[in-house]
């Protein structure tokens, strides 16, 4: 009986023919080309040191033998991504020779030429095709109508966070997130064993491209363990299959470096960095550090603090911080807090009633894992919020409550990213980028669900965000000139942290209590179906 219901649900929701008429989708192609046009216009904009980081990796993988990839320390930007990413850079470098061989010389530190910039920017744009593919696939699985499918593609492909981080600041998050979406799609189809295994392959490959995604791995583990291994009754053969997949991918990745594993791992997990980044990511630790700052000022006024223990936290590059009043968290503590904050979500996913479980729960659990790690992780980068925002975008077109959280989270998260673009001449660009995306997301989703999604105080919070950016980049300099240089950044990250924390709590609350609109109506339908079928049975 229960199996039938699950199938019933599937038939209700999966109208692939309606969503995409053929393999060629003109509208999607248009969205992609339009996005690429915007990215092309951004080619000459400012790029961060990450540009040099990736150029240096191109040089390392091109001109050094494999054994030395993780040993080279000519540049301060050593290779600190897992081996698959190194291979990715290796393949790029084979093409880069034809553009500018100078950029591949390991001694050419801080080298930028127009061709090098064009090439590197172009690789990010082309790699984004994988993002588009991932969006297409996840849209086909989760969207019920063509309009929501298009909205999803529009909001994901034009995601301002990705534009800022990948196409201005310079990184390769787009295609990594594409792989994440792809693996979610595959893993969500619990009934098909081949698809589950493919999903596992994709996810383990993703982990070997950038290990930051290990934070969402618990959701995968629980989902696969409970709804794939335990459910079917073939526990041991299934867990063996999964285990061997992960192991094979790991061997493929780390095999060539087996003799220098400690060296590789010391590069991948540098625990010498501080709790918060030079610019605080908008998470719980930003609030914590802010509170400490505030208390230290208060303590000083009251005369409770020795003058020797004053520490600056915003000055340097990457450094360890000292807290003046509150206890200083250690990596272990942050790890424990992160994991503890994930447990309720994981437990709920594990113990859900079989009739109620849908792939959406898995995605929600994954989003919560991403958010929890962002909230409490050690040395979190502000970009990590994208790991939560993009999967959430998928659900935002399906459910009203998800859309509500999406609007707040994306607005706050993206505003938290803006201080990355610190040069003055980028001020109008970053203001317009965040403003336009906020308005578009608001308009599109409100139009889709036919009524206002946010509560009044939530609109108020979101509406103030652009002014925070305006203050951070323009107003502060006008009012204070050079005094209090830490204030605008600290204020931005704390204001955004409030939004992110609110989203985390709200989403957790809705997730644990199953307070999503569609699900509620779906249960009712299911119950009606059960009653109907029972009646038929009796007749």
């Amino acid at each position, binding site marked *: 009986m229960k199996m039938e219901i699950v199938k019933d649900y599937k038939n209700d929701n999966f109208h692939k023919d309606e969503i995409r008429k053929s393999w060629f989708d003109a509208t999607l192609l248009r969205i992609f080309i339009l996005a690429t046009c915007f990215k092309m*216009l*951004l080619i000459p904009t400012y790029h961060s040191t990450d540009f040099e980081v990736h150029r240096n990796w191109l040089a390392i993988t091109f001109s050094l033998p494999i054994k030395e990839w993780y040993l080279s320390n000519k540049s301060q930007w050593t290779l600190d991504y897992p081996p698959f990413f190194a291979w990715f850079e290796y393949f790029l470098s084979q093409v880069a020779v034809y553009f500018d061989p100078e950029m591949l010389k390991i001694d050419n530190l801080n080298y930028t030429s127009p061709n090098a910039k064009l090439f590197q920017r172009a690789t990010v744009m082309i790699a984004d095709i994988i993002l588009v593919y991932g969006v297409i696939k996840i849209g086909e699985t989760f969207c019920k109508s063509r*309009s929501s499918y298009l*909205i999803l593609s529009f909001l994901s492909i034009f995601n301002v966070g990705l534009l800022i981080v990948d196409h201005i600041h310079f990184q390769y998050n787009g295609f990594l997130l594409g792989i994440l979406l792809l693996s979610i799609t595959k893993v969500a189809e619990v009934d098909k064993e081949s698809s589950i295994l493919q999903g596992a392959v994709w996810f383990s490959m993703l982990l070997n491209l950038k290990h930051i995604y290990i934070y969402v791995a618990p959701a995968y583990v629980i989902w696969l363990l409970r709804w794939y291994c335990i459910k079917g009754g073939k526990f041991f053969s299934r867990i063996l299959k999964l285990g061997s997949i992960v192991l094979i991918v790991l061997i493929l990745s780390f095999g060539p470096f087996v003799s220098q594993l400690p060296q590789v791992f010391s590069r991948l997990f540098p625990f010498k960095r501080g709790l918060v980044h030079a610019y605080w990511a908008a998470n719980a630790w930003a609030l914590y550090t802010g509170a400490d700052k505030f208390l230290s000022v208060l303590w000083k006024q009251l005369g409770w603090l020795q003058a020797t223990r004053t520490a600056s936290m915003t000055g340097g590059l990457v450094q360890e911080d000292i807290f003046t009043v509150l206890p200083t968290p250690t990596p272990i503590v942050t790890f424990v807090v992160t994991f503890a904050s994930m447990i309720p979500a994981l437990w709920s996913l594990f113990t859900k009633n079989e009739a109620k479980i849908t792939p959406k729960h898995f995605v929600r659990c994954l989003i919560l894992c991403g958010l929890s790690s962002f909230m409490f992780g050690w040395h979190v980068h502000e970009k990590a919020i994208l790991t939560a925002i993009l999967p959430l975008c998928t659900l935002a077109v399906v459910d009203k409550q998800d859309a509500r959280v999406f609007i707040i989270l994306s607005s706050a998260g993206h505003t938290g990213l803006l201080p990355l673009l610190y040069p003055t001449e980028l001020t*109008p*660009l970053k203001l*317009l980028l965040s403003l*336009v995306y906020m*308005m578009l997301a608001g308009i*599109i989703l409100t139009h889709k669900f036919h009524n206002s999604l946010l509560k009044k105080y939530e609109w108020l919070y979101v509406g103030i965000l652009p002014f925070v950016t305006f203050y951070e980049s323009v107003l502060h300099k006008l009012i204070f000139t050079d005094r209090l240089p830490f204030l605008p950044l600290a204020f931005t990250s704390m204001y955004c942290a409030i939004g992110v924390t609110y989203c985390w709590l709200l989403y957790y609350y809705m997730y644990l209590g199953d307070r999503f609109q569609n699900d509620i109506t779906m249960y009712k339908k299911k119950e009606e179906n059960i009653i109907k079928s029972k009646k038929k049975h009796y007749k």
Partner: protein
Amino acid sequence: MTSEYKIKRIISRSRYCANMTATIRILVIMGIVLLLRCCVTYHPYSGQGKPPMFGDYEAQRHWQEITLNLPIKWWYTNTTDNDLQYWGLDYPPLTAYHSLLLGYIANVTNSDFVQLRTSRGYESESHKYFMRLSVLWAESITYLPAMLWFISGLKIQELKAIQLDEKNLFDFRKHDFHLATILIYPGLILIDHGHFQYNCASLGFFVAAVTALLRNRLIFGSFLFVLALNYKQMELYHALPIFFYILGNNVPGRNKTLKSCIITLFCVSLTVLLTFAIIWVPFFQDRETFLNVIFRLFPIARGVFEDKVANVWCAINVIYKLRNALNNAQLAQICGAATLLAVLPSSMNLFFRPLRNKFIISLVNSSLGFFLFSFQVHEKSILLVAIPILLNFHNDPLPCFWFLLISTFSMLPLLINDGLYIAYIAITLLYAISTTWVFPNLCRITTSVELKDECDKKLSVIYVCKNYRQFAVVGLFRLSMLGTVVLSMLCVLVKPPKRYPDLFPLLISVYSCGHFIIFFLYFNYKQFCIGKQYPMEKIKSN
């Protein structure tokens, strides 16, 4: 009672909501178009890092320096402090006043920007930011609101039930689509925010003037047009149709009495004279100052054309070297006569039948006539034609779309020279794709395959025959676009032979010129067609 009150409240609230969403939609569009402009500003400007003369960017900066540091009397005069050979002011006083205002701001921001003499060729990131921002400001207070005003007065047929279909993710109305596609016209964005100029200011005044005239506010309209004219003298391209439209609407016996006509005309001329007088007051001090300005504005000595322009003289020059046969004064006379011949028919036609649609097309014809035949034409002057074409877009989409793309293409050599090739490709592609997405019937041929659902094969043959004209036009359009794509690619990929270093710019200008001549004939034909089907009485009620 209470229920009535409730209904009233609900209605008022829903109306408020509708207005709210309309405002937000407009804000979104403005945000998007500003974002697009903003993205272009990070590309290089004309003459970036190219001493000793630099480019238009340096010209604008130099004007700020001159107007800020010299008394008004010497602005247009060659002195030791004001070497007119080095980017002397050659636009009317309003441009100079604008430069003065910017000069003040620049002086407050960083006085190095506008130091007399020492600041020549000043370049820095912060200065670029300042200059770019000044164009963004100028555009957002002139051109963008003017276009919004124009669009909001348009009567475009609105579909009754707007379903949530492919393109309508944003719940946009037709007006919104028209506004958006007009405001992302690549030519103006590339020239103003890439190459660097303030065309948006004069064009904004011009659009506002046309809108005011279309709404029968003749005095306000003529005031705005005088502002446009005093910002850039090239607005003279539009002067004739505006003059004849006002005059034609005030011929006694059509729909007005003699008295009201005379009063209106008197008011209009008074406005024009007064506005002119106020703007020119500082230059009336003595005869020499005044004449200096006039000579700066109309430089006969600079030759019939500079660089490669897509007009008739440049095209003729390929075969027959005009400049060897005739001197500048003779050429100027020939140009003048040819221009007058080209422009008069449409102006006369407008005078006899001053209809609104005719007015807009006549603006196209006049400016295109000037562009093709007049003396001293810049490739950027095509913008003066492109703006009335934008205003005409809703009447005749495909030819206008076609023209707009060709006009952007005709400026390609200039853009390549400025290092704006990537921006050109990106923004033209963006414009073409979003316009064809928003107006799907723009350049699509209804194929017989699609017709299968609607009618049988016999009918489809008739249909295709009836539509063979459309078929031919769309085919030609695609062919022409293919040509522009091929030429755009050849320009950067292939090195021209050593004997003809200017081969590609020349090819581009001849190719565009051919298009412009055909467009000139077509739009003239169009203008004469309008109003033929209406008898005189209907015009009166119009």
